[in-house]
């Protein structure tokens, strides 16, 4: 490339102490060091979600790269009034992963998902961010485990599989109304469980 490269340097302490929203303002001004801090904070959770959804390292990396470039180039309109930077970024990851899934056939999607779960490399979880992440994931997994299988399956197929309620109804051989009901009951139960766990800790 024609462009002179800056020497890679560790992000400054000062940037690391800033909140995500403040870093986003710096990123908007073209600050690559602020971007790096955001990447270090959120790439783990973003990649884990992309990996869960696409089921393979290649597509997962592509999805995460797209999402962070959207953040850097400011193409997806972050609005602090509408929620946290992390949820916004993860929303982009989910949308891109669904797009990637929809480009492959239903059969391939199921096959890759199963394969991907077998050969993934678990995060060793050494840094503070990773330890917090692991606890957070375990908490939600514990809450999900309480749901009846039918409800959990409907939720996971929709949220991670990118399937519509009618597709899920076909796959599970149940009426669309039943699937919608399972989604609502499952989400309610998940909310209640998470509230209970939070109160207890």
């Amino acid at each position, binding site marked *: *490339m*024609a*462009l*002179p*490269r*800056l020497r*890679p340097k560790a992000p400054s302490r000062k940037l690391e102490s800033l909140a995500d929203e403040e870093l986003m303002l710096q990123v908007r001004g*073209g600050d*690559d060091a602020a971007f790096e801090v955001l*990447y270090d904070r959120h*790439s*783990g*959770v*973003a*990649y*884990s*979600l992309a*990996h869960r959804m696409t089921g393979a390292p290649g597509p*997962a*990396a592509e999805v*995460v*790269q797209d999402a962070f*470039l959207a953040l*850097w*180039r400011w193409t997806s309109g972050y609005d602090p009034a509408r929620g946290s930077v992390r*949820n916004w970024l*993860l*929303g982009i990851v*989910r949308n891109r992963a*669904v797009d990637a899934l929809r480009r492959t056939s239903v059969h391939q999607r199921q096959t890759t998902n199963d394969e991907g779960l077998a050969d*993934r490399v*678990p*995060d*060793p*979880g050494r840094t503070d961010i*990773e330890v917090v*992440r*692991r606890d957070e*994931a375990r908490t*939600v*997994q514990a809450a999900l485990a309480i749901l009846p299988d039918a409800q959990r399956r409907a*939720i996971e197929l*929709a*949220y*991670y599989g990118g*399937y*519509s*309620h*009618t597709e*899920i109804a076909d796959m599970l051989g149940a009426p669309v109304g039943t699937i*919608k*009901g399972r*989604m*609502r009951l*499952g*989400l*309610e139960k*998940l*909310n209640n469980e*998470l509230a209970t766990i939070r109160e207890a800790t």
Partner: protein
Amino acid sequence: MIEDCRQRETAAAFVLGALTPHERDDFEAHLATCRACRREVDRLDAGAHALLVAPDPVAPPPELKERLMATVRADAELLRAASGRDADRVRHPRRFARPLLAAAAFAAAVVVAVLAIDGGSGSDVKTVAATTTVPGVRAHVEVRGSTARLVMTGLRRLRAGKVYEVWVKRGSAAPEPSGTFFAVADHGATTEEVHAGVGSGDQVMLTVEPAPGSEAPTTDPVVTATLT
């Protein structure tokens, strides 16, 4: 519950992204007028957000960060080169920077893609010599089908607020911006993809323009190549 709505059952499918695009648009329109459904969506949203962080932690490959940071640093450097101490920066702090950034980033992506596919010079690449008006600059164009790239050495580094811009001139028509803009490192060597289609008889030209680039050339070409 005091209020209720027949469509409330759709809220869960909505927050889980399980509606078809058409159904989603309909439900969003409905949400604008239905308080019961808005409350239901707010209530269920927390659970859906929790699902975003539920997957088992898997470490991203280190190459992903290297790749992203290389792109991001190159973009940032280009932004700095393009706006630097220029007076435009004071008057329009962001207005110019983003289109340039996007164009530069796109150019970078195209160059990388072409290098990846090409992997060297194939037999179907035609090399066309270019004339230059600046001493020490050497340039040629590599044409493959209707795509071209400009290979240059000896370019001087530009003052802040200036960029190199590539043009395609077809016959007697005015030169068209190709969408390729770049800054250059101290050593002055670069290869830039011309991302406008080219054909026999077209001219590829390079000029120096005020950042973020111009719609029509404002200076005489530094490099001109007539494709055969």
